[in-house]
């Protein structure tokens, strides 16, 4: 497929392909971080993760409509406001769900699967009733569209760079919160030994609620960012849920580093194979590879070493 191209052209294609892989990597990390906290740290199988993302996307949509109607001058900057609102909207809903449903199910992880799946159906129908069955178009500020021409032939999409930047920022914040703050220490303590953590005076119920809220809030931000690359409809969340679980499980559920490593592996494999083979074949091969590796190493790529 490369005959008739100069070396320079090939070089720029490969550079762009490298960026495509990195962008996919960022998207995967952003999708998976929230779930890694909820599933990895809390052991809750949250099938409604995609719907929390789409809530964030709808918040962005409302924001864009509201601002373009009432304060068009602020339009270029609305995206940041939208992401913050998306974080709080999804986070608040997450805490509500934790309070109303999840906290009764901590000892029954498989039941959380059914309960949150039901929740995802309910949320989908609510989205459909409120926003209509059709997808909505989120209008983006002009500066987020288009691409940067690095050289004459290498063009990098701006929204891809934006997602990459956002992913790095959120990852750093999560790292700081989980591993460098007292609150994060509390979270990790509760996850490792709930009874003992309670005995030393940590309010485990409160920690649970905020952890779940944080995970959902990050999902909301991810959903908000994905309005740039994907669709916003009542069932769009379903498009992400499989890939999200794939990344988290493959990385080793309890390790945030594992999530990032697995997102990198899967995204690079998929994007490279998509380029050389066809789209469907690439997906099949990626899934097959993951299945084989998980058969050999059921605990995932990275394991948290704890004394049981």
């Amino acid at each position, binding site marked *: 497929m490369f005959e008739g191209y100069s070396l320079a052209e090939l070089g720029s294609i490969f550079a762009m392909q490298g960026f495509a892989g990195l962008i996919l990597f960022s998207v995967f990390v952003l999708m998976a971080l929230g779930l890694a906290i909820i599933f990895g740290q809390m052991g809750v199988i949250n099938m409604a993760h995609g719907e929390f993302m789409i809530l964030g996307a709808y918040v962005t949509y409302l924001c864009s409509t509201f601002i373009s109607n009432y304060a068009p001058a602020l339009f270029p900057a609305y995206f940041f406001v939208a992401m913050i609102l998306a974080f709080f909207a999804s986070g608040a809903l997450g805490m509500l769900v934790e309070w109303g449903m999840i906290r009764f199910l901590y000892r029954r992880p498989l039941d959380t699967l059914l309960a949150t799946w039901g929740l995802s159906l309910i949320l989908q129908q609510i989205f459909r009733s409120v926003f209509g*069955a059709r997808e909505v178009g989120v209008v983006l500020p002009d500066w987020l569209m288009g691409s940067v021409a690095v050289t004459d032939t290498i*063009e990098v999409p701006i929204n891809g760079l934006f997602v990459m930047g956002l992913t790095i920022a959120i990852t750093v914040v999560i790292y700081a919160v989980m591993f460098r703050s007292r609150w994060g220490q509390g979270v990790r303590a509760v996850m490792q030994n709930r009874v003992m953590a309670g005995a030393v005076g940590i309010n485990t119920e409160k920690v649970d609620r905020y952890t779940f809220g944080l995970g959902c809030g990050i999902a909301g931000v991810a959903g908000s960012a994905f309005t740039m690359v994907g669709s916003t409809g009542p069932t*769009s969340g379903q*498009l992400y849920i499989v890939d999200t679980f794939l990344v988290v499980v493959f990385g080793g559920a309890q390790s945030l580093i594992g999530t990032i490593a697995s997102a990198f592996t899967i995204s690079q494999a*998929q994007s490279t194979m*998509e380029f050389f083979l066809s*789209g469907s074949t690439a997906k099949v091969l990626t899934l097959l590879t993951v299945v084989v590796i998980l058969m050999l190493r059921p605990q995932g790529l990275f394991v948290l070493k704890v004394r049981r």
Partner: protein
Amino acid sequence: MSSDKMDADKLNGGIPSPLRRKLLLGMAALPAVGLLPRGALAQALPTSAVNTTKLAVTDGTVKVGILHSTTGTMAISETGSVQAEKLAIAQINEMGGVLGRKIEVIQEDGASDWPTFAEKARKLLVEDKVAAVFGCWTSASRKAVLPVFEQYNGMLYYPTFYEGLEQSKNVIYTGQEATQQILAGLDWVTKEKGAKSFFLIGSDYIWPRTSNKIARKHIEMKGQKVVGEEYFPLGHTQFNSVINKIKLTKPDVIYASVVGGSNVAFYKQMKAAGIDLNKQTLMTISVTEDEMLGIGGENIAGAYACMKYFQSLKNPNNEKFVAAFKKMWGGESVIGDVTQAGYLGPWLWKLTAEKAQSFDIDKIAAASAGIEFTGAPEGYVRVHENHHLWSKTRVGRARTDGQFDVVYETADLIEPNPFPKGYQ
């Protein structure tokens, strides 16, 4: 026939004999039926005569079914068809109904699930005994209900453009089959843009694959080249790799049949990657005004779509149709190709029933060929013997406001050819 009728009359409670004679005389005067005032028609055409197979027809009403997904992932697409069918039925009822009978609708939800479609189709045919069903959207749902319609002898009006390779006595296909939609568009883009190379990209299921197979044959028969052919799973959201591949192969035309949520991702990412659709020709057979809402006009402006109908079509029928649709469903609503095809269903059925002077499925099926509908928003259509429609093909250019400018339409109606020789 008359003895059948008399038996049936006895069953109906025995109308006194002189009256019955009058009724029979009335039957003989059928050509004058059109002159009768509203309501008189039902008496002129007794239920026993227009309904010999125990369908849900009374002296004043006839029941039909609407079977679409109003929940689940396909609700996005099927909502428009439901609205169009209900509009057509409301308009027909206003004009006095079909054979003097008001249409009553029984709506069922296929819930985007193919076995549910089959089950609901069985319910409509066996329990409700509807005289016709307007419904289905995806080929998968149509394939699921087809055996049911054939087993219980029902009549389905199917609105979606589809891959062809099917024909049934029990189905009228009001959308285009693949060759109608594809060939004229390819010829136009070749002539207009001097296209020599094509990149085919679609979602991975039967319709895009069959359509691209036909497109590829046609392209290669003309001595042009297909430089890439790619399929992605339904719901795929990352197209950066294939966009690079498109940049590498530099096709004259990108030929796209990506559907659903993937569509949005595909066009947004293409725009972000710097592919300007005003310079790079892209022709799609899967984006209607409905999809444009989610994609956003600014992301797809400049692309060409090949369909039989666009909302912006200028003719008196369409102006009336669009106005009525917006009056019934709100000024914000948009009308895509399939929505218009959905609107044709009830009208074609009414015209066929009037030609057959009967609601019987067998008579409707036999009378369908040659039915002409001059009031169609897309312009004149006619039913072919193979139960598909003769229709024109048009090319529209996407605008930023979510509508299309019609830039080309075929001079003549194109013959439907669901089993194209040399293309399989």
